[in-house]
């Protein structure tokens, strides 16, 4: 890393609010190392978030930042990118924020393929409000609102976002922080909507209710359950049942939204000029 991580932090806002062992700090560090590896000008980076534990992240980051309403980070980010297409716009949000209340914004940002990078801090729970289940809580897991176990199936967010039209989709974990950082760098460098699901741990509300007593046990769970695409191809569907794929999930080249918009402005301006 060319610069110490503190270069990107608002040191006066630290230490952060996250609990002891929370994976969000690891994921935030991975985002900063990705930004550093791309050598982005920090005055040209805009980080946007919604509401939730993960959405506290921009408060600690020394970029232009926006802490918005629940689920609407992508709506605000879309506005910023449309107005200032040259900015590197990054959305940091939790699984509840992105997959539940902000689900519509997520699929439509992917459909438009707007050049915004979205990092989903997936801790499988609503941590800030004391552990209600989210659309990413695995079936059978405990939550304050699922005291006998969650009866719902979680989303495969990566498949959802890729099906909706994103240019880049990938998944990483806090345990694999190095590869996660490289994956995020690829996402930021993508011209189009890029989505990274970062599997994080919430020892306080998810771990304790699900027989994982601390962050170390939860990181171990990530290590045991994350498999690369290559490793997954050698496993049977039964063996894959409780596992998930990490790394690049899908990439495609599609026209980017703000570029299309620019072309429309040009065409419309030309038409008006011709008529004068």
């Amino acid at each position, binding site marked *: 890393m060319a610069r110490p991580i503190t270069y990107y932090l608002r*040191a*006066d806002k630290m230490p952060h609010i996250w609990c002891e*062992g929370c994976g*969000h700090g690891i994921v935030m560090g991975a985002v900063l190392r990705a930004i550093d590896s791309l050598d982005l000008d920090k005055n040209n980076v805009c980080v946007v978030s919604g509401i939730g534990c993960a959405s506290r992240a921009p408060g600690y980051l020394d970029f232009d930042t926006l802490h918005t309403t629940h689920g609407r980070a992508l709506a605000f980010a879309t506005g910023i990118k449309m107005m200032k297409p040259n900015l590197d716009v990054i959305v940091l949000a939790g699984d509840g924020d992105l997959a539940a209340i902000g689900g519509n914004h997520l699929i439509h940002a992917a459909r438009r393929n707007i050049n915004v990078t979205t990092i989903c801090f997936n801790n499988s729970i609503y941590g800030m409000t004391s552990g209600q289940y989210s659309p990413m809580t695995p079936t059978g897991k405990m939550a304050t609102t699922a005291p006998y176990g969650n009866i719902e199936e979680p989303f495969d967010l990566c498949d959802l976002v890729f099906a909706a039209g994103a240019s880049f989709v990938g998944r990483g974990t806090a345990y*694999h*922080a190095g590869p996660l950082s*490289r994956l995020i760098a690829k996402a930021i460098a993508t011209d189009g909507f890029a989505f990274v699901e970062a599997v994080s741990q919430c020892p306080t509300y998810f771990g304790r209710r699900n027989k994982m007593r601390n962050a170390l046990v939860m990181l171990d769970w990530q290590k045991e359950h994350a498999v690369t695409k290559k490793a997954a191809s050698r496993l049977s569907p039964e063996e894959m049942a409780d596992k998930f794929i990490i790394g690049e999930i899908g990439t495609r080249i599609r026209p980017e939204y703000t570029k299309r918009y620019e072309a429309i402005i040009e065409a419309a301006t030309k038409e008006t000029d011709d008529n004068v």
Partner: protein
Amino acid sequence: MQKSGNAGPAVNGNSGPVIINDTWCKGCDICVSFCPKNVLERPEGGKAQVAREEDCTRCGICEIMCPDLAIQVVPAGDRKKERSGTRGGSVDGK
């Protein structure tokens, strides 16, 4: 933009390869557990400390795994050597 963002972490009484900011550290034990050379220790109820500085290879795992962003591994003088010493979670984006 705030100027305070450039401030480095408070040095925990040492200037060796690993610097731990003990006002940011919450004592989760991740660094102690992940260090492949057993360089770090944490007293019961306390913060992480550098116990065996001479064993440190500057691999950087403690730094990238620290959820509190409280650890800084000071790069060695030789940039090439420093890179070859980086394992698993390389932080240079390569």
